[in-house]
């Protein structure tokens, strides 16, 4: 088995044990969506109008929620130092961490999205574009989030600092992800928007792991 698979299996296994970040993320998703609904009121037309945006904002916040502890345990127990000394580049571990995060958080967000769409009375025609945009967008959130977690590793108040760093970087995903849903809802083409999201995913995949590895290297020092 390759190194990437080893680290992903270990991290996913640890994440799924007991009352984990994954469980909390799911509860947070449902709570946040319900709270939005309470504050907006019973206006069905309004719920439909804001539904797409709410789903993306909640997805984004749920991603951040599970990021804070992404590297902390590995940092504190010396695992990161061992990764550094291993024959494998830290870039592989950065990629593995982003994939593990996506599997335990992003995938959960994707599965929950149609359920939330029903809560907001969104038409069934948007389910496919919603899931597609989430499928492309959530890995971007995980890759950028992994970088944010690495940059703030070892910093005091990292929980406050990290959202300040990564939230501005999430804005393009939020805009294009929400636009996909709106365009689908009003019968417009959304293919070009999905292409933009794919472009963002490719750029992030190419750059974020290297930057994350560099940040981890600095944290070890």
């Amino acid at each position, binding site marked *: *088995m390759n*190194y990437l698979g*080893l*680290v992903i299996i*270990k991290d996913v*296994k*640890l994440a799924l*044990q*007991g009352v984990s970040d994954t469980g909390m993320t799911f509860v947070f998703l449902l709570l946040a969506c319900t709270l939005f609904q309470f504050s907006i009121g019973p206006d069905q037309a309004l719920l439909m109008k804001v539904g797409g945006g709410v789903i993306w904002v909640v997805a984004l916040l749920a991603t951040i929620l599970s990021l804070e502890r992404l590297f902390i345990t590995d940092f*504190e*127990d*010396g*695992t990161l*130092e*061992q*990764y*550094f*000394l*291993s*024959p*494998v580049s830290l870039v592989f571990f950065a990629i593995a961490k982003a994939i593990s995060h996506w599997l335990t958080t992003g995938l959960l967000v994707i599965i929950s999205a149609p359920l939330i769409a029903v809560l907001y009375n969104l038409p069934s025609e948007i389910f496919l574009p919603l899931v597609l945009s989430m499928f492309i967008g959530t890995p971007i959130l995980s890759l950028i989030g992994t970088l944010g977690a690495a940059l703030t590793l070892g910093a005091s108040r990292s929980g406050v600092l990290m959202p300040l760093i990564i939230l501005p970087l999430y804005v393009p995903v939020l805009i294009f992800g929400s636009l996909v849903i709106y365009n689908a809802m009003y019968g417009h083409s959304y293919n070009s928007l999905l292409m933009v999201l794919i472009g963002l995913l490719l750029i992030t995949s190419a750059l974020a792991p290297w930057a994350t590895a560099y940040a981890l290297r600095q944290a*070890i*020092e």
Partner: protein
Amino acid sequence: MQSLKIKNLECNRNGRTIFTGVSFDVTPGRILLLSGKNGSGKTSLLRILAGFMPPTTGSVVWEDKKFTDKRQRELPSVLYIGHSNPVKLGLTVKENLIFWAKIFGHGTGVDAALDQFGISNHSEVPASYLSEGQRRRLTLARLALDQPISALPSLWLLDEPTWGLDPEAVKTLSNLTIDHVKNQGMAIISTHGSILDKYLASSSDRYSLTENIF
């Protein structure tokens, strides 16, 4: 003769000089026991040798190659055990050791390694059930794994490895270290005068950082 040459190392942290003028050689087949008071820079020195941080001045070279250059494949491999135990509490004892064995390309011998450190009867229980001393044993069990086949000697950097260990485990550790250097390995161990020093006395050199403390 091949040797790891540490030349005139200086380490500054947060504007404070931790140590300066540290020079010594480590040759395959030898153990270096590093001693010094708290704050004398034993951990910093080992971290510099592991490549975690650069020295302020000075060099660490192996046959004219910068020792901490990870791109250089013609360098001895480093096995570092620091103060903390990279043990995942949610994994079983055996899963923990298998994970590191695979990451570092060690051969088989996981069960034997656990047995050597007296924790084979806990191999299937989560590591969270272990005491601190047993977690230390699990961390050190990596030393007992079959080492990757290489023409180059490997360097063990052990930072106060006996912390939390009972005398029986210290004896196991000293036997493993002696076996390692008999196979032309190298070891640098920071200690505070534990019984490990006595076990290793005949096959080790000593270097004290106390004289360099600022």
